[in-house]
């Protein structure tokens, strides 16, 4: 099975925060963006919006520091890093360890939660109107960038002629 990852195109994101809403509805049953696993970070003075979800890092600090193995990697599920809510003790060490500030402490469940790709069908991808988030094969993530570079190169070459 090919490994898939969440790919964010920040140039498409409008900052509508629909992804946060559907994420919280899917995971908690409540339409409360505060409890969602994805967060749109906004720089209003720049007009720059960046949906940030877990990167499921190769060397995941959250997995390293978890005292109960609640935070673990699942190679069979897109190599995702996920937290078993029945094992989590809510020590929040993973939140401190993550450089991206990703795992969140759910004050109602009293445990730490994070993105788990919605078990293979990410709701943020499904509901994003402008397709700023996509769930793509890991080895094809830089295809857009390659295409952009090729386009620039082509323009350069045609102008040189």
């Amino acid at each position: 099975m090919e490994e898939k990852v969440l790919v964010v195109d920040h140039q498409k994101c409008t900052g509508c925060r629909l992804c946060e809403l559907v994420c919280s509805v899917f995971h908690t049953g409540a339409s409360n963006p505060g409890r969602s696993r994805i967060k749109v970070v906004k720089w209003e003075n720049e007009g720059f919006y960046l949906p940030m979800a877990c990167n499921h890092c190769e060397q995941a600090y959250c997995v390293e520091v978890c005292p109960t193995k609640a935070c673990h990697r699942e190679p069979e599920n897109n190599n995702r890093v996920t937290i078993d809510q029945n094992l989590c003790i809510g020590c929040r060490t993973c939140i401190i360890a993550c450089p991206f500030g990703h795992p969140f402490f759910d004050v109602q469940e009293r445990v730490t939660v994070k993105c788990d790709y919605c078990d293979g069908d990410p709701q943020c991808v499904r509901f994003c109107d402008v397709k700023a988030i996509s769930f793509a094969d890991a080895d094809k993530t830089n295809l857009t960038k390659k295409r952009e570079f090729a386009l620039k190169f082509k323009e350069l070459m045609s102008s040189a002629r």
Partner: protein
Amino acid sequence: MGKEPIHPIRKVRYLRPQREWKEIIAIYLYLAGMGGGSFIIGTLIDWLGVKLDPPFLPSVVLFGYSLNLSKVPILWGPIMVAIGAPFLILDLGIKWRFMYACLNPRTSWVARGFIILSIFIVLGLILFVKSVLPFKWLYPESFFWRIPEIIAFIFAFATAIYTGILLKATKSIPLWNTPLLPLLFLVSALSTGSMAIILSSLGTGLFSYHSGALKTLMVGEQILVVVEGIVLYLFLARRYKTTEQGKDSVRLLLFGEMRLIFWGGIVLLGFIFPIVLENIASFFPGNTTLIFVAGGLLLLGGFFLRVGVLHAGIKEQIPMHRLMELQYNGMIEKWKTLSEGRLKKENAQKIL
């Protein structure tokens, strides 16, 4: 200066100092460190064979046996650690699940800490109870007891160092990610522990037959405070030079929101006042009030050291934040040049 953020752009969601571990963890770190440190110093005093006979201690009779309280003032460390450990459990989201961490000792430093502290508390309390009970059949002076004493001594060191390793193990906070932090916490544990032993021995008149022992202990404690100061300086200087977030953390501690805790709590209460007061007290032998005040301040300083280090931890920057910062700074520069140009124009019009 007070409310001004260190970097205007840094006032975004992910670059504030961490707020996950608060005072509860600081209390835990402090009590574990101080308890471990005092047990180390107390055991050393015990091993050196200093004659202990506290005259001010009341005689306690339990079930017809009169308890031997002579070693209580030097071996109470594990009680402090036992009081501190529940604070770590209090901080958990689901308290009763701390058992899960005990059952997985190989996973992380949080789990190993549970084991280290548990062993130290159990062994320390056994030794404490052994020293109190008057039963002959326990053979309190026998060589057999040296083995648990040595193990508890090693675990007391491990407890004191572990408080630093716990923070170091998180890796993504540059202020904590240094071997100097466990060293700083160890030296601080020894200085606060020795001061706590001095206070308890003064309160009970422990060294009334050995005034020299108290003097040596006080000199040792002052040396430890000076060493702690040097390690703190090295720690801050090295962290200032590592990454931008390390620099930010040090600036936050020295000149930012935490400056009152640093200069007032750590430097004044923890270093300057105790040394000055103890030196003044050396001119008035027999007057213990000054030493009590100095000791209380030093113990407070040790607590503020943990609070300061915990609250100044800023996470490492991710590349996206760096990009935003560059764009923001570029925008500020552009705005400045634009406004300067406009001002020049206005000035020129005025002159005309």
